[in-house]
């Protein structure tokens, strides 16, 4: 490694501090590399900068509702329905970050240290070979160049550090992890779990496997069951870069964190035949600066990384870094969701709960696991939760006066809702490109997105609602209704693909170690690397791929290969 640091020169550069970037920073620093970590947004210090974390409902403006003017500023972000005064500082002002929707696409994001690791849903599910083998078996897209046994030790490694609570279930399609004690199901969820075991041999309800600590872990505190996670946790009880991986990188003394650093391109030296660094535009001064390193990790999030690669032009790579195949920017995916069912349950009138559990229950995929359905490929899982109706139910009622006050103080009937998350097949037609005629406030070309769910997603969709209704009816619910709301790409906030891993440089952008084909010292380990989408929440897989790739990068450096 470098003995005498030259200005702007490091062993490694990591672009992005979100859920995968924080991991790249930690792993590279812990293995001794001087690492420049570039974040395009402002710094966010753990706890100190969680400005709304302790505000009671009456301390938030307008009952935590955005004003009309605020909604206008975040006119795309509010499509997610998670942007409120208590969280709006984690989401971009859309006019500052324009993009082009050739077809509807909800690009939900925040630019700050920690990225969406502060606002994610914390669900952590492993993939299995059912997922990794699917493309090859079905002739869809390209084959993943890895299988579960190669990734399993890295799932172990990541779970052991971040802390994942959950219940081992022995299901082949959802491998068990190294779990902290599970959070409890409530009465009705436990009842439904039992009825499902009786009525459906292949369907299981389990507690959400989530990156929440149910006991103290590596210096972070356990969950206090406030369910205000999205404001940032003052106890460090859920995993974020800010709470866990970045502090681990800081402790090594090897990390240099540079916020307000917009990476515009990877610098490829045509004479040397290798990538040598990145160009940064300072978000405050707008000045351009170059930084150099032997290894570069792109973790700018799926579309952020796609932008950087597409904007990195050289004689070797005239169509974007690593784009010999023509697949760069293509095969964009996002889970389909916003469909499922809900119903009312007449029992457990004398039962209630205390504490606010920050995770739901989960029903792993059961379609096309043991038996194939002829109607579509792949499958879907559900996030499910039961609760007693709260005071909002009285809005549609007619009681007034003292009787209304009485009704407010009583919990309503038990209800359960189930929302499905369905796999999205990769399609070359679902793609992003740069529009050099339309520039953003930095003078950079806007990303132009054309993507939509296809035939397989449509064929799957009605089953997502119907199967949920079937489960609720079997468990004794009444007034069971399905729902089906618009779910354009981006709305599930699991956008992935555009720089897929594959065995063949002619049909993929990355190899089995997440190295860019033709530029082996550039690694992509965020959502852009994904070759298929499965139906499981993807962040755990991004983290595992990142840790694996970082270890590989360092061993290659040690062997003089990079």
């Amino acid at each position, binding site marked *: 490694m470098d003995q005498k640091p030259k200005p702007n020169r490091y062993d490694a550069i990591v672009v992005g501090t979100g859920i995968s970037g924080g991991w790249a920073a930690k792993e590279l620093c812990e293995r001794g590399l001087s690492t420049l970590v570039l974040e395009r947004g402002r710094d966010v210090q753990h706890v100190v900068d969680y*400005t*709304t974390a*302790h*505000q*009671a*409902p*009456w*301390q*938030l*403006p*307008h*009952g*935590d*509702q*955005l*004003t*009309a*003017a*605020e909604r206008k500023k975040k006119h795309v972000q509010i499509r997610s329905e998670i942007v409120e*005064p*208590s969280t709006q500082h984690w989401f971009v002002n859309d006019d500052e970050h324009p993009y082009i929707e050739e077809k509807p696409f909800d690009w939900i994001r925040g630019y700050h240290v920690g990225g969406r690791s502060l606002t994610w849903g914390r669900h952590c599910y492993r993939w299995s070979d059912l997922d990794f083998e699917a493309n090859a078996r079905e002739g869809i897209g390209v084959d993943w160049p890895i299988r579960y046994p190669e990734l399993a030790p890295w799932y172990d490694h990541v779970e052991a550090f971040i802390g994942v609570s959950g219940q081992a279930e022995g299901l082949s399609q959802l491998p068990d992890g190294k779990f902290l004690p599970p*959070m*409890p*199901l*409530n*009465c009705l*969820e*436990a009842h439904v779990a039992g009825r499902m075991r009786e009525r459906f041999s292949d369907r299981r309800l389990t507690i959400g496997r989530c990156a929440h600590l149910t006991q103290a872990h590596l210096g972070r505190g356990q969950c*206090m*069951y*406030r*369910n205000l996670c999205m404001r940032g946790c003052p106890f460090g009880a859920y995993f974020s870069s800010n709470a866990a991986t970045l502090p681990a990188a800081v402790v090594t003394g090897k990390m240099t964190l540079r916020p307000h650093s917009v990476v515009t391109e990877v610098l490829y030296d045509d004479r040397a035949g290798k990538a040598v660094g990145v160009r940064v535009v300072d978000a405050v001064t707008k000045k351009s600066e170059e930084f150099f390193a032997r290894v570069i990790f792109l973790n700018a999030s799926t579309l952020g990384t796609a932008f950087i690669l597409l904007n990195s032009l050289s004689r070797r790579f005239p169509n974007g870094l690593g784009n010999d195949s023509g697949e760069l920017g293509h095969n964009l995916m996002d889970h389909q969701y916003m469909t499922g069912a809900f119903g009312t349950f007449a029992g457990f*009138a*004398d*039962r*209630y*709960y*205390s*504490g*606010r*559990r920050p995770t739901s229950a989960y029903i792993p995929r059961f379609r096309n696991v043991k038996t194939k359905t002829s109607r579509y490929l792949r499958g879907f899982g559900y996030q499910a939760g039961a*609760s*007693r109706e*709260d*005071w*909002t139910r*009285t*809005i549609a009622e*007619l009681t*007034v*006066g*003292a009787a*209304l*006050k009485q009704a*407010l*103080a*009583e*919990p309503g009937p038990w209800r359960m809702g189930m929302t499905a998350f369905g796999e999205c097949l990769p399609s070359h037609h679902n793609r992003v490109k740069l529009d050099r005629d339309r520039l953003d406030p930095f003078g950079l070309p806007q990303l132009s997105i054309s993507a939509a769910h296809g035939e397989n997603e449509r064929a799957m969709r009605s089953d997502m609602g119907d199967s949920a209704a079937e489960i609720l009816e079997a468990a004794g619910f009444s007034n069971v209704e399905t729902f089906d709301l618009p779910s354009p790409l981006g709305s599930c906030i699991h956008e992935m693909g555009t720089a897929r891993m594959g065995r063949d440089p002619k049909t993929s952008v990355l190899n089995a170690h997440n190295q860019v084909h033709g530029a082996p010292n550039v690694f992509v380990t965020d959502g852009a690397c994904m070759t298929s989408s499965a139906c499981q929440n993807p962040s755990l897989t991004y983290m595992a791929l990142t840790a694996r790739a970082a270890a590989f990068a360092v061993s290659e450096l040690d062997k003089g290969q990079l």
Partner: protein
Amino acid sequence: MSRRDALGTSARLVVGAAIEATLAGCRSEPAPAAASEPATQPAAAAATSEPGRFTPEQRAILDGIVDFLIPETTSPGARQAEVPAFIEGVVLAVLDDADRRAFCDGLDAIAASARQKHGLPFAICSPAVRLELVRSLFGPEEATRAFARRVRELTISGFCKSRFGATRVLQYDPIPGAYDGCRSLESVGRAWATS
């Protein structure tokens, strides 16, 4: 002017100003965009510091409505919980233009009803008359249904998010520390204010 005075000493001021009042206030531009720092004081303070947004007559009507829906009993009611100020803030800053106009029209329809049926501004009508005017809002009339639903929604949510509502009528635990998914309702007592 304290909002609780609206029905008392300032009532006479309302008589002369009645006509101008319905032309101004609630239909004006929305309140300025909120400051970028998160609010640390109760939401009510921002709304009542803007004079002339809701007219005194509109405020009197709103007071009457929230008091009818959620009165003071052995626990505080919506007026004690400053729900009228909450509603005013939401109507002026949160609702979009069409919904804000519809809400203001709804208040003004009650004001007009008071004058037409009783020849007096709402605030000067007797308590029994004011009660009847408010109660009829929540009756079977189709014309007022949408406004009735909206003001009911705002009253209930404003109350349940207020300190009084969330802690004295409902329950609020800022740091539960644990989750028990199946305990007796009796051991919990009142419904939770938040989830």
